[in-house]
């Protein structure tokens, strides 16, 4: 009798835990994305790459390293890759900014670039005007971005 009661109570506890399992945020399907950013066939470092999904999903970002390689992460920095599906690719030349971001309200009226000119056109800086798009498939993606002239 006591044994069956024990089994019953364990079963209750386990089912109680089961109620709370599976409440995780599923979200859109993500797939790993990496590749090389290049301009005129030469790899380009310090380019901030943003993937803007056309359907539901997070924006994914990365900064290209000295070899022009980038590896995307969702813009919360927690999930790897990008949402599966078509994307607009937004590019910023971040080499014009200093190593440290400007601080506080004083940054409002200063030239944060200190007169440096970006190496790529401004039209890539907005998802509306960019001419680059990529499709992320449900596998390991190797997507090279050659910036058109």
């Amino acid at each position, binding site marked *: 009798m006591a044994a069956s009661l024990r089994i019953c109570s364990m079963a209750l506890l386990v089912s109680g835990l089961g109620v709370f399992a599976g409440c995780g945020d599923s979200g*859109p399907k993500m797939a790993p994305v990496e590749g090389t950013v290049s301009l005129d066939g030469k790899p380009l470092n310090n380019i901030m790459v943003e993937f803007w999904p056309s359907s539901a999903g997070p924006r994914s970002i990365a900064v290209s390293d000295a070899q022009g390689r980038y590896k995307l992460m969702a813009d919360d920095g927690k999930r790897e890759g990008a949402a599966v599906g078509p994307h607009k690719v937004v590019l910023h030349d971040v080499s014009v900014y200093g190593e*440290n971001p400007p601080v506080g309200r004083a940054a409002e009226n200063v030239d944060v670039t200190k007169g440096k000119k970006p190496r790529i056109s401004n039209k890539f800086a907005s998802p509306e005007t960019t001419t680059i798009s990529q499709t992320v498939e449900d596998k390991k993606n190797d997507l090279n971005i050659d910036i058109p002239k």
Partner: protein
Amino acid sequence: MILKDFTEQILDNTMVVETAIVQIWRPSDSPFANMSLFLSKEKEGMKSRKLGFTLVELLVVIAIIGVLVGLLLPAVQSAREAARRMQCSNNLKQLGLAVHMFHDTHRKFPYGMLRPQSPQFPHPELSPANTNPTRRYGFMHQLLSYIEQDNLWQRWDQLVFNNNDRVPATAAQFSGDHFMKKTVPTLVCPSNPGSLLSEPANPASTSNQQYFRTHYYGCAGTRGYPRGGVYPRPSLLNPFAPAAQDPVGPAAPNPGYVSTSDGILAQNKQYNMGSASDGTSNTLLLGERAFFDPIFDSDTVLNDRIRNWGWVWFAAQGDNFLGTGVPINFRLPVNFATLGGARTLLVDDRINAFGSMHTGGAQFTLLDGSVTFISQSISPITFRALGTRAGGEVIGEY
């Protein structure tokens, strides 16, 4: 053995004596004659009956209660959050109605912000060349009379802005400090955490100025706050930069982001209903900002707190309006420190981001006055399109 026999004998004797007593006390001809038998039987039963619960029974009961509470508690918490969300949507509705009443009175929407440090400042008689270099109205100032705060509006020194700030006015009840800390409940979302006041603006100074910060912001199109004074004029590169850009100071353009006057609210400019050619139900008017960002607050390089943005009574762009060029609920990523030069743009993004502490998205007032909850999983391209008043985009389901 002997001892056991002896005990049994004593017990038997006791029984006999007891039965006898009962029989004597209750005569055999009474209706309760066989009661004695019943009584003695009951007495025997009492001996073997368990008193109280066993440990296992107790544990089972506790487990059941635990499961029930576990089921109930999230429901209670979500009911509380639902109530807070409802209060927040009520605030957004009131502010939306206030904007519409403003439009009925003035035939125009409010200024996104009125700021003299710009050639486009529409009141030259009050320009910096004259006596009033800091005259600056935020978006919410203009709505005060329409959200039952007309008394507060009357107190506002409209000619000498500094009287509202830190220079003590002559009459005590007109103390600017009081105004700066003045809390208006309609501007507070109950789900947002923390104090209603910013940190002291300048801890080193004696004035130790703190400001009330709003949780609701106008939508300035795709970008409301351009760090680095980003106001490019139309050029071959960017022919669609609106001519009405308001250069602030001598700043050079930040090539990463351009300030776009493509929303319904803009600095030193008023639009009317007809300007929203995307349709009033496809254009955002107001939204919330989330004051929770552990990375922003902890980053030693930034030396800033997200709750120091949103000084509603001393409003600059970052305190007045947000932009839809940033996904809903964007926070600085956990790998922020590794992102080098991109951090400048990400901080700019954060200060422009709509967001809330409601689960999974944020609430917005559309230009038609309706309040809607938009999920943070919306395509960022669609969300961006919702911010523009005349972008010409086709907005599908969201």
